[in-house]
């Protein structure tokens, strides 16, 4: 894990790419905290923003997002050469299924697809990747996923790409499969139910309000069968079976 002031290589309304020469090796599904005010010019927004590492390669670290509030608006407005504080990689990330038997079903919705790209790339042909969004344009990183050697399917609410409907309707898990989901809580909940019905393991990558990303603010808890766990250090990837789904905010 490193903390650096990184230089922006490019930024737009869908993502930001940073130059972080000291970026260490990381695992698919890990995240970083991006600090918008590395030199104390604004003091607001004060807290760093958690973002999944979309892809990293030789110090070139990419994040993908939709503009939903002030932080993402400011990220989108960055110019090449601007400074951004970065702390990462953080969290546990995804673990590839141990056996070589079944498929890994990756289910992504909304901005959650950003967490899955490197995992899909790592799994290659073992991965069935299902991505959903309101429209085709709402699926983060779509073009990059299309370039991967994976079994890829889309679902959109308006039918603008692939299946018209919910992405989980494409899942059809079979014994031996393993499910990995990241997206809105309702989507992950549905994925977990389908996995449960099929008797296959399900791992979900959660979001939570974060201040520190490293286990010191105790802000990012989620309820599990072992009490509260921290999304930043125990997660973001959790075994769906261990979560108290009703207690998620």
């Amino acid at each position, binding site marked *: 894990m490193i903390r650096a002031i990184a230089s922006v290589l490019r930024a737009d309304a869908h993502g930001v790419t940073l130059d972080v020469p000291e970026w260490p090796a990381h695992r698919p599904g890990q995240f970083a905290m991006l600090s918008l005010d590395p030199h104390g010019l604004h003091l607001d927004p*004060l807290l760093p923003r958690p973002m999944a590492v979309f892809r990293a390669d030789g110090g070139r670290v990419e994040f993908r997002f939709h503009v939903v509030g002030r932080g993402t608006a400011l990220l989108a407005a960055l110019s090449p050469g601007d400074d951004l504080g970065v702390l990462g990689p953080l969290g546990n990330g995804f673990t590839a299924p141990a056996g070589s038997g079944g498929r890994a079903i990756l289910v992504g919705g909304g901005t959650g697809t950003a967490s899955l790209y490197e995992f899909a790339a790592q799994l290659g042909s073992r991965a069935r990747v299902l991505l959903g969004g309101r429209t085709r344009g709402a699926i983060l990183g779509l073009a990059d996923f299309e370039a991967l050697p994976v079994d890829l399917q889309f679902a959109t609410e308006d039918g603008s790409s692939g299946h018209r409907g919910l992405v989980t309707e494409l899942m059809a898990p079979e014994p031996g499969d393993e499910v990995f989901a990241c997206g809105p809580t309702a989507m992950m909940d549905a994925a977990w139910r389908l996995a449960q019905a099929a008797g296959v393991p399900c791992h979900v990558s959660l979001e939570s309000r974060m201040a520190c990303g490293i286990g010191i603010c105790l802000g*990012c808890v989620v309820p599990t069968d072992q009490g509260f766990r921290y999304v930043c250090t125990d997660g973001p990837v959790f075994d769906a079976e261990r979560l108290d789904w009703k207690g998620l905010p």
Partner: protein
Amino acid sequence: MTAGGAGASDRPEPPDLSADLCGVALRNPVLLASGTCGYGTELAGLLDLREIGGFVAKSLTLEPRAGNPPPRITETPAGMLNAISLENVGVEAFIDEKLPALPEGVAVVASVFETEIERYGEVCRRLEGAPGVVALEINASCPHVKSGGIEFGQDPAVLASLVRACRASTGMKLLVKLSPNVTSIAEMARVAEGEGADGLSLINAMQGLAVDVERRRPALSNVLGGLSGPAIRPVALRMVYQAAQAVKIPICGIGGITSGEDAVAFLLVGASTVQVGTASYANPGAALEVRDGLQAYLERHGIARVRDLVGGLLS
């Protein structure tokens, strides 16, 4: 003249940063605030705790506690609200597991809070002589069950009993961390001093509330939370200023410190040490930047010792 040669005495000495925390000598006056640095171990690789004055660990109760359900934090203009509540590993795990994991030479302040006065005293007793612990900080911003949930630090009589009980329970140095949610911080400061506090820490987070308007719900599950960060700095400076005029014991200033200049401001109004809290979230090395900024300020102004700043506000 060559570097390191005989002329070294011509170069100005680096300023003396050593500070006094209620009778404990510290390397420099910059500590980390309770609840914003875990138990110290989490910062390994990000901040060397031996380069700052010390840190105040997350407040401890007698037993481990779980705290509030999510959401526990939310951002506000130049600040944040938190309602972590009492979550901590408990005093025993702190002594048995957390303290031994720290490197040698780190000054640890153990923070104590509870819901009943007797239990505060008991936590203090357990901490007596814990290795590395240089002082205790009594967190008075905890709801007092017997007073119907108002904070210990909001009622002079309750605060007096609390400090008296803690004082009686331990020979260790006692810092009392005051609640900012009061009409007169000077009165509370005098109460704590009168009952034998060795120093004061102020301020704790201010009580606040935020609303998630789209969902029409409180932003925090607990509805109320503690406001921290630069937003509260002017209130914190005012309270340190007022407390410093009311008491003789040293004050540790806290509230929205993000730079060396912010630390200088707290020293000038009367604090002799400071704590960095929320700023560490955006930058785990913030306290080091505060220390460096403080040193640069002293050099720029030709001030030899950091303690010469204390209470040095001109008028």
